[in-house]
């Protein structure tokens, strides 16, 4: 099961062999196609292109059409301020001061940027019938804050009736917007109401319960599905959120997933979240993101859970980070590797492998999770095992399982990041994929040839041609060249015309030829003075 079916199965509380993945791509879609937030959020075509690119790169099971919590506010008369890398901000609040709610009209599908989002929804629906499309609507309380400003908090004490009236109005807007998006082809409506995190459960019950419940009831009557998105410190409200009757609750990194799971499961509601947005998705590495994803999946379990970021993805979230999450979610081996590496000791010893691979034989190392339990690891080891004998003792191979400390140390020392990996003489050669037999043979042979060349290049000695001038040396140079050619060897020939150097070599008449033979007497050791004296005697 994949895509829309998988998301809906999880949304209904089903157990999933693969956990559905829903990256909340908002203005990040603009980043993928080189457009700023302002351009992107004003064009249905750009949204379709941005989301299509995200689908191609991240292979999601579901995706929002658009993530902008100011669309309804703008349609109702709030002025917006635009930034290049963020969704817009609300600048003016039409109901602040003495303005009466009766001055506002209900929204219609042709107001503001609503037609843009609806057009994008219809096109994406046609293009991706098998991916779950989320339609995002602004929750009644957050929309109320947009319309009234922060006065909303004080008025809850001073004039509660006016807030009931306001939220009755905004929930009507949320219901209308939900219907437009469902009619345009969305599968799930996400009611995004982050501002509810600012109030406690009593106020939530008094002010928010009824308006939000009316939205979820309405969606259910249309035989469609709903999710309640909240971000921030909303732990205190999860229980009362469940009582409003959504199909799913999605939260961010501020709330423990297992806490949400336990409460939601008590109400028969599915849940989602809570990849960390700033430190991990935006600023972390692909490995950090995969570790965070595996951690979320391990905590949440696979019953009624949807993996998603905590909120709208920052515009410049690195593509590699999101791709890494998309790949790990369907790769149980990769997940096992991450779990194994998570428990590696903090101070893993790093070996100095600078001299590695300078032996006569070629060394092939296979870094695995464990070839007995990990199928890709097993195939990789077998591939090496099968070709090694063809090199008649020239190739030596070893498996390093990262379940052992030795394996982890070796992996870190060779800077290996993926499992399984083949290194030839300490150099990462095949990553994750099992090489075809011929490619493996070619890679090992190429290393053997390289070693042979290195050995040939090692300086055995040299010929010195001495003379008063280049012209004087010329006949000797020609004969030497011919001799080297006939022997088929490589040897360096140097010419020297400096009389002082010639004299220092003991030569009194030119042209002259001196042959020099190098002999290695000691390597990586400290021979004694007496030993060195003997070597000197041999050459004087």
């Amino acid at each position: 099961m994949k895509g829309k079916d998988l998301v809906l199965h999880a949304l209904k509380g089903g157990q999933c062999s693969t956990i559905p993945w829903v990256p909340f791509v908002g203005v990040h879609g603009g980043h993928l196609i080189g457009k700023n937030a302002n351009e992107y959020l004003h064009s249905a075509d750009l949204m379709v292109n941005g989301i299509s690119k995200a689908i191609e790169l991240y292979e999601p099971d579901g995706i929002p059409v658009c993530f902008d919590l100011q669309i309804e506010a703008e349609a109702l008369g709030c002025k917006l301020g635009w930034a290049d890398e963020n969704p817009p901000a609300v600048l003016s609040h039409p109901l602040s001061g003495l303005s009466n709610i009766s001055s506002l009209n209900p929204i219609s599908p042709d107001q503001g940027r609503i037609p843009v989002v609806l057009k994008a929804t219809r096109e994406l629906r046609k293009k991706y019938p098998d991916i779950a499309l989320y339609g995002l609507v602004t929750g009644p309380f957050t929309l109320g804050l947009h319309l009234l400003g922060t006065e909303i908090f004080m008025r809850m004490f001073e004039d509660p009736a006016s807030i009931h009236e306001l939220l009755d109005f905004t929930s009507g807007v949320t219901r209308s917007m939900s219907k437009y998006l469902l009619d345009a082809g969305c599968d799930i409506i996400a009611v995004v109401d982050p501002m509810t995190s600012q109030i406690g459960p009593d106020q939530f019950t008094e002010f928010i319960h009824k308006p939000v419940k009316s939205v979820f009831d309405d969606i259910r009557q249309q035989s469609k599905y709903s999710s309640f998105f909240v971000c921030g410190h909303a732990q205190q409200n999860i229980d009362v959120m469940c009582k409003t009757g959504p199909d799913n609750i999605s939260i961010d990194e501020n709330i423990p997933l297992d806490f949400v799971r336990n409460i939601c499961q008590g109400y028969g509601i599915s849940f989602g979240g809570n990849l960390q947005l700033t430190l991990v998705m935006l600023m972390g590495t692909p490995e950090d993101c995969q570790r965070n994803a595996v951690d979320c999946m391990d905590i949440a379990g696979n019953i009624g859970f949807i993996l998603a970021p905590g909120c709208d993805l920052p515009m410049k979230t690195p593509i590699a980070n999101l791709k890494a999450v998309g790949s790990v979610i369907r790769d149980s081996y990769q997940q096992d590797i991450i779990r194994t590496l998570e428990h590696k000791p903090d101070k893993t010893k790093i070996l100095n492998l600078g001299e590695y691979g300078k032996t006569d034989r070629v060394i092939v190392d296979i870094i695995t999770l464990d070839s007995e339990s990990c199928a890709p690891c097993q195939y990789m080891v077998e591939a090496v095992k099968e070709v090694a004998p063809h090199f008649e003792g020239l190739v030596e191979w070893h498996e390093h399982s990262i379940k052992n400390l030795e394996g982890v140390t070796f992996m870190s020392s060779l800077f290996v990041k993926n499992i399984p990996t083949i290194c030839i003489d300490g150099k990462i050669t095949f990553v994750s994929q099992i090489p075809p037999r011929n490619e493996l043979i070619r890679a090992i042979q190429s290393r053997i040839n390289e070693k042979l060349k290195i050995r040939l290049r090692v300086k055995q000695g040299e010929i010195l041609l001495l003379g008063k001038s280049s012209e004087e040396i010329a006949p000797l140079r020609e004969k030497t060249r011919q001799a080297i050619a006939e022997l088929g060897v490589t040897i360096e020939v140097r010419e020297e015309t400096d009389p002082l150097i010639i004299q220092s070599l003991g030569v009194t008449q030119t042209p002259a030829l001196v042959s020099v033979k190098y002999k290695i007497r000691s390597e990586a050791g400290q021979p004694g003075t007496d030993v060195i004296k003997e070597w000197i005697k041999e050459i004087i």
Partner: protein
Amino acid sequence: MDQGNHLKKIPFILVTGFLGSGKTSLLLDFVRKYSDRMRIALIQNEFAPGHVDGFTLKQTGKPFELLEINNGSVFCACLLGDFISRLEPFIDQHHPDVILLEATGLADPVSLGQVLQAPGLSDKIYLAGSWCLLDALNFQRVIQSISRARHQIRIADVVLINKIDLIHGTSEIRAKILEINPFAKIIETTFGNIDELHLLDLLNFASKKCHPDERRDPVPNHEIPDGNISEPRPNLSSCVVRSTRYFDEGLVRDFILQHSQYLHRLKGYIRIDESNTMAIQTVFTQISITIVSGYEGPCEIIAIGPNLDNREFSKQLLSLKKNENKTH
């Protein structure tokens, strides 16, 4: 001014507080008093209610640099991308000695702190402190109704009770503040005017100019050498760690003991089980740990120290989580 200061990390101070608490007045006062002696940079939310525009600030007739951001209420980490990309060139251009950010009442101070760890920012600035302003008159209502107000107090190093002339006595407010944040330094003010001694104390606290033992006493003289609030400042870094897990109390205590040897300051809240949370504050090697109940929200720790390695510090702290409720 000291040009060599460009190479040092700049202290970044969050000024939080609900609408009407007097944040802008405090900034105006700060600019009036100190802009002759140090390069001040202010970051304001261009469209926040109560925003005093650059023109009004410039009427102080004092030099300072202003960065206006337009993130509305900055209520969500997902709206901080533009902030990062604009702050970096602003710092490169102006090289301030101190940066003060006026956050809105709904801004999450921990998310803002995390953003300072972004590549391009973490080698230029560090989170030096958080000052939270409270409007004495509306305190009780705000604190009851808005969870972010409690969060901003909890994270603050210094809580300024403003407009004390409008109420009779502050003992109830003080008690409530200390219930939320047992380590808060509390200062009472009117019109955002902080007594100069207190302000110098705050600046020194933020810039780590003096040792904590000296800091307890009023600053010995009122002089700040030109541009030198950061003169003795080593290469400080800040690290913000947030987690929703429960931690092992014993391991956390060992960790705090070990790291307080080199950290200048560490503060925050670490949950050890469903009902108990460690409230921690260290100032150099002085360690205070109190177990509090009724804590809301995830574990949040802010550490400041010389050459602090963010990744390594986070990794080590997070490894002290209790291994529970996992369903492999």
